C-alpha cells in the first residue's frame, strides 16, 4: 500500500494516428506523487498532455509504459473508482434528462440506495446553486449550469479524491468564484483534489502544489507557498512561463545535438 493517494512512475502514453499508425507521445515518463488532502494543479500549454494524464489516472486510457496508482490501486480499478469523483473537460450529458434525474443516475451507478440518492442529489444541487433547476432538462441548460452539474455528479459518492479537468472552463466570474469556494470547502473536508487548469489566478488561490507539464514531460513542480513567497519568482505566472521556456530551450538543444 502506497502512502501517496496518487502516484505515477515513469508513466508514458503513446497515441497512434489512424491510418499510418504514426506514434505520438502524449505523456513521457511522468513521475509524480500527490499526498492526502493536497490540492494539486497540473498546468501546461494546450497539447501538453494534461487531459491525457487525467484520463490515465481515472482509467479511461491505459499506460503504454510505467505505472499509475490511485488510493493504492491500479488506476481504473473498481475499488479506486468507487472512491473518486471525475469531471471531464467540457462535460457531455444526456440532454433528455433533467438535472435531478442525471444526479440520481450518477448516484445509482455507485450503488447508493434510493433515500441516500435523493438526499445527496438535493444537497449537491443546492451546493452548486442549482436547486431551482432540478427539473430543467439538460438540453436547456447553459454551459455554466452544465459545468456545475458536472461538479455535482463528481461529488455524488462523497469521494476521497477528485479529478477535475478544467473545472472553471465556461464559467462566468461568479461561477468561477463558486467553484473556487467549493474546492476550498472540499479541502477543508480533507479531500484530495487533482486538477488541470489554464486559469493561473484560480490555481494560485486554490492549490498547494503545482506541476508544469510540457510536451508530455514534467518540466517542474513547486509548492504555491514557495512561489508566492517571492524568492525566485514574482508570481505563479512567472514560474509557469519560466519553466515552460526553460523546458522548451532544453528540448530544442537536445534536438540540435542529435
Amino acid at each position, binding site marked *: 500500500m502506497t502512502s501517496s493517494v496518487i502516484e505515477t512512475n515513469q508513466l508514458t502514453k503513446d497515441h497512434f494516428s489512424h491510418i499510418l499508425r504514426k506514434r505520438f507521445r502524449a505523456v513521457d515518463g511522468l513521475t509524480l506523487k500527490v499526498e492526502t488532502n493536497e490540492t494539486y494543479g497540473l498546468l501546461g500549454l494546450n497539447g501538453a498532455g494534461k487531459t491525457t494524464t487525467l*484520463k490515465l489516472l481515472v482509467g479511461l*486510457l491505459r499506460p503504454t509504459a510505467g505505472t499509475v496508482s490511485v488510493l493504492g490501486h491500479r488506476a481504473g480499478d*473498481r*475499488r479506486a*473508482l468507487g472512491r473518486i469523483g471525475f469531471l*471531464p473537460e467540457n462535460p457531455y450529458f444526456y440532454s433528455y434528462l433533467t438535472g435531478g*434525474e442525471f444526479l440520481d443516475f450518477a448516484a445509482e451507478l455507485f450503488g447508493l440506495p434510493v433515500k441516500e440518492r435523493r438526499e445527496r442529489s438535493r444537497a449537491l444541487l443546492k451546493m452548486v446553486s442549482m436547486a431551482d433547476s432540478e427539473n430543467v432538462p439538460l438540453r436547456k441548460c447553459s454551459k455554466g449550469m452544465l459545468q456545475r452539474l458536472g461538479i455535482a455528479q463528481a461529488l455524488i459518492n462523497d469521494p476521497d479524491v477528485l479529478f477535475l479537468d478544467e473545472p472553471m472552463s465556461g464559467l462566468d466570474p461568479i461561477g468561477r468564484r463558486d467553484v473556487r469556494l467549493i474546492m476550498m470547502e472540499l479541502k477543508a473536508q480533507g479531500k484530495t483534489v487533482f486538477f488541470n487548469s489554464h486559469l493561473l489566478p484560480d490555481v494560485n488561490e486554490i492549490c498547494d502544489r503545482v506541476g508544469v507539464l510540457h510536451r508530455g514531460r514534467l518540466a517542474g513542480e513547486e509548492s504555491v507557498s514557495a512561489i508566492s513567497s517571492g524568492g525566485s519568482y514574482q508570481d505563479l505566472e512567472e514560474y509557469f512561463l519560466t519553466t515552460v521556456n526553460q523546458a522548451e530551450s532544453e528540448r530544442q538543444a537536445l534536438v540540435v545535438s542529435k
Partner: protein
Amino acid sequence: MSMKALYPMVAIARNTFRETVRDRVLYAFVVFAFILTLAGILLGSISVGQDLRILEDLGLATIAFIGGIIGIFVGTSLVHKEVERRTIYLIVTKPLSRWQFVTGKYIGLALCLLVVSAAMGGFLLGVVALLNPDHAVNPLMVEAVALIYLELLFVIAVATFFSTFATPLMSVVFTLSVWFIGHFALSLRALGRLSSDAATSRFFDFLYWLMPDLASITKIRGDLMYGRQPEMELLVFLCSYVCAYIVLLLSMATVITERREFP
C-alpha cells in the same frame, strides 16, 4: 451477487429506456405501424372471406418489421452514441463492470421494445375485436407476438454487439445482413450442397451453423396463425436457442468494451 451489484445495471437500463422512449422518432414508427395495421382492413375488404386473416397476418408482419427497424436503428447506436457524445466518460469512471454496462444497455432497449411490441400487438387485437366482436381474443396471436419479440431480442443483441466497435451505418448493414441471412439459413446449407467443391460446401455448412435459424421462428408463427399450437418442447428449445445466441453476443460485446480505451 448481491442486489447492490445490480443497481448500476438497473441505472444503465433505466437510462437507456428513458432515452429511447423520449425520442420522438419512436412514436413516428409506432404511428406508422398503426397505419399499416389499419391498411390491413382495406386489403382484407377486397379478399373473399379472409378479411380477418389478412388483417392479422399484415398486423403481425408490421410488428415484426417496425420492431426490427426500431431495434436495429436504436441498437446499432447504443454503445457508439455514448462514445461519440463522450457521455461514456461519466460511466466508465464509475465503479461498474463493462458487462453491467453492456447488459444494462441491452435490457433498456429490450424493455422499450417490449412496450412497443405490446402496444402494437394490443392495437392489432383491438382492431380485430372492433371489426368482429364475436371473434374472441386469440391466445395463439398473443403467442405469435411473443415469438416476434423473441426474434427482436436476438436482433438487438446483434445490433448491440456491432455497436461496440463499428460505426452506426456499418452496424446497420451488418445487423440487417445477419437478420436477413438468419431467415435463409437453410438456403445456405442447400447452396453448399449444390457446389461440387468440398471447401465451398464446408464454408456454407460453417455459415449455416454460425448463423441463427430465424426461419424456424417465422414458421412456428405461421403455424400458430393456422391454429396449430406447437409443442412446448419446441418452444422451450427455441427460447434456449435464442438466449444462447444473446448470451454469446453480449459476452463478445463485453470483451470488446473491456479492451477499449476512451481517448
